[in-house]
């Protein structure tokens, strides 16, 4: 087998056997001693070389205190290795949540680490492979919330690659690390076209192409809260006064007009991604102004509606359009 072909397989084997990386492991994950790795850093190697020189010099000049200093520093090196290891040991990852994002931006991966011991954990860094690490500390018997930006480069389902939790505490001589593969997944929506192109003219709209914030926003009354209603429309003051039951404000005006975003109605020369970009931009625009809209894609159709749930469904359809993982 040629070397180039063997390398990924060796890598896989190492990942599975040595680093014990599982495809997706259920939370909570506790960092046991078998999944913490320690190796000297560049500084650690330079430190060791310095100590070796010091040992040789002590031997040569028969310097008893030279030996003593060298051995004290050797001990300090070992203790710092142990402290690095202990700094990671028994940390628990209890929650991992990935936010949706638009293609080209960063998806926020929110991690919650718990330190069950009475010792503070300092100088921890977590990073997705290849990205800048995020530094944090956890107090004794406390939890820390860390947000790691995960670059969203393709639309569709985004799963963070393996995460590295590492530390060089206390002296920077040793790097201790552990790999984490939390089950977090989120949709990456197509990049919205900017600036937003004019909304399509539609027969169902009273004022084609014009969508003002005012005009539609005439308060029409209250109805009982239904799942999917935008939180912005909840009558919070009423809820505060009357307790449990939530009510949603209903507006007149926008009610009558609706928009239809149709894949097939777009200019013929556009490629797939540009079409998705434009449709996404329109969906966001319409959702922002609470105008009911419908969406038609080659393999998806949704009648005009409003509400967060509707918006999410449409964005999901746009994100997964033509993707092999659409069904999952």
């Amino acid at each position, binding site marked *: 087998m040629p070397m180039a072909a063997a390398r990924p397989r060796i890598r896989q084997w190492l990942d599975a056997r040595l680093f014990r990386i599982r495809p997706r492991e259920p939370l909570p994950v506790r960092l046991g001693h078998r999944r913490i790795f320690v190796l000297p850093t560049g500084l650690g190697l330079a430190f060791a070389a310095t100590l070796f020189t010091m040992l040789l010099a002590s031997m040569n000049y*028969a310097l008893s205190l030279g030996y003593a200093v060298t051995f004290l*520093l050797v001990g300090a090196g070992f203790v710092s290795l142990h402290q690095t290891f202990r700094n990671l040991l028994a940390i628990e990852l209890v929650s991992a949540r990935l936010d949706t994002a638009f293609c080209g931006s960063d998806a926020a991966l929110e991690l919650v680490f718990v330190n069950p011991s009475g010792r503070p954990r300092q100088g921890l860094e977590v990073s997705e492979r290849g990205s800048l690490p995020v530094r944090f500390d956890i107090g004794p018997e406390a939890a820390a919330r860390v947000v790691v930006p995960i670059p969203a480069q393709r639309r569709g389902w985004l799963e963070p690659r393996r995460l590295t939790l590492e530390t*060089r505490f206390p002296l920077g001589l040793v790097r201790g690390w552990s790999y984490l593969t939390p089950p977090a997944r989120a949709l990456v929506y197509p990049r919205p076209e900017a600036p937003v192109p004019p909304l399509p003219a539609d027969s169902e709209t009273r004022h084609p192409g014009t969508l003002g914030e005012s005009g539609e926003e005439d308060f029409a009354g209250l109805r009982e809260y239904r799942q999917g209603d935008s939180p912005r429309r909840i009558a919070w003051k009423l809820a505060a006064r009357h307790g449990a039951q939530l009510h949603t404000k209903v507006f007149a005006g926008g009610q009558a007009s609706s928009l239809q975003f149709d894949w097939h109605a777009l200019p013929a020369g556009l490629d797939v991604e540009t079409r998705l970009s434009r449709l996404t931009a329109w969906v966001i625009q319409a959702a922002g102004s609470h105008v009911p809209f419908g969406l038609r894609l080659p393999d998806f159709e949704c009648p005009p509606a409003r509400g967060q749930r509707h918006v999410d469904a449409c964005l999901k359809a746009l994100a997964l359009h033509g993707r092999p993982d659409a069904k999952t």
Partner: protein
Amino acid sequence: MRRPSPTLNPAQGHWLTITVLVTLLPHSQHLPAWLSAICALLLGWRFTLDRGASRAPAKGILLLLVAVTVVAAVAVEYRHLMGKDPGLAVLAAFACLKLLESRSVRDGRSAVLLCFFLQMGQFLNDQAIPVAVLTLLGIALALATLAALEGGGPPRLLMKRATGLLTTAAPFMLALFVLFPRIQGPLWGLPHDAFSGMTGLSDTMSPGSIGNLVRSGEIAFRAQFDGPLPPTQQRYWRGPVLSVFDGTTWRPGFSTLSRTPPHSLSGPTYRYSLTLEPHNLHWLLALDLPRHPDGNSRYTTDLQLVSVDPVRERRRYQLEAYPAAIAGQSEPGHVIRRNLRLPEGRNPRLLALGRDIAGRLTSPPDRVSALIETFRRQDLQYTLTTPRLGADAADAFFFDTRQGFCEHFASAFAIAARAAGVPTRVVTGYQGGELNPLDGTLVVRQSDAHAWVEVWSATRGWQRVDPTAASAPTRIDNGIAGALPDSDALPLFMQPRMAWLRTLQWRWEAIGNAWNQWVIGYNDERQRNFLSELGFEIGGLGDLLIATGITAGTLIVGLLLWALRTPRRSDPLDRLWDRFCGKLAVAGTERPRWMGPVAFAAEAAMRHPRASGTIHAIARRYARLRYGPAAPDRRELDRLSNDIRRLTLK
């Protein structure tokens, strides 16, 4: 992915500055003054730089210029570059330059590594306790600096972290220090100045040479006797024997070495151990007449004990002394003739004095007695401050100035005795010594350096005569402080009225002696003895390496196990709840992490119907204590603890 090293912040800069400062502090007394000044200047610059009060040096060029200048100046100062002193000087300067030009964390780390090396380097000059303490402080600072470069934090916390690290590292140091094989001797050629700066008697004696040595209060050696000490009059520590005289300087004569003593050993014996400070020459010091029972030293034909290698580190010897033994009755003719030879035309008046005595008396002992009597009558003054003497120094001393130190006395006596036909030689060494009442060691200082003569007769062999004793007998009984006139300025430590200071000094020196014996003098021999006292017989290097490995490994595993032990919950209520859940888990009912106490109790009670009442009671009490408004008090906790203890599950 390689990221550029972050830049240093002012706090990190201050840490680095103070570390370099403390590291160089013990060096400064051995560095040339101009270099210390440059280092201080560079450190000051760095300090103001971090305060934002000055500008960084233009990258590279200026520093390169300074570096080249310093190296050149060091080369001029020491007249060479390869060696201990210039090496340390250059490293010290480089540490300061590195500090000044450090911009990134990476630069700072290299400066710290350089500091570690310099901290070891200062032991080349001095291994005393104060230096060791200062070095320990330097190491703690250097580690705190590394911590500051890694993450930072308040200074107190970083210092605490560093000292904690060192405390935990202490067992490693102790184990490695005791067990790591000590390889004797240099691994490669030592620079010729490796052992410079050692004081002690020299191989020759000329007017003024001992007088200069006496001004030093440094310890020459220490002796510890098994049993009683010899009387003061017998404490003549014999050093170099000088039998060749050129008119000004006495030099050693040729002698051969043998492994067995060339003299008979009889009479009373004193056994003692002697710890000699290094002097970079071969001679050892011993009471007459010496025997070195199990050492690898040699005896010369003129009764010296010499070491095969130069004494370059503090050494300890087991010795015996036979003060009543007689040596040299059958000296060969050439030795006799050598000890009668005098340069013609030098010191004519002493020559005449000797010949006059030879004309009046025939037996050598009578001639010696007559000479001692002459010395006594001459009314010579024993003083450290001798006037200038001319070319015939011995003549000028004896007949004109009549003021001199022991080397003048010994030289004049030897010249006169040789002129009188008595074979005579000069012996240098130390006389006396002071008992440290705290640890019972006899401390002999450079200020006890002395010179006397030995005269030969066929019947009694070589016999010691101390011409100084003839004119200043108190020198021998009371030491130098009692013998010198009050007008002579004695070093502070020798002044009699400073008694309390002496007590303090004794105490300090007793500690110093223990330090020297056990820490600094810990070599391969001591290592073997110490380990065999503990019951381990060490065969060779391999045994030691294995022992070192096992001990270090045990310590590392110990640390690991300590880290792995389950951390104890600090909250007593949590601990009780954990115990309860643990008990149920053992019985097969594990609590999912998300399940609250009451829901869990309901499930557990279903699985263990017999204990259902207790389980519910425990869970309710826990929930009330945990989530209720009042903080749990002692009694409630005890009750919960009792319930959990009594809980039995099938």
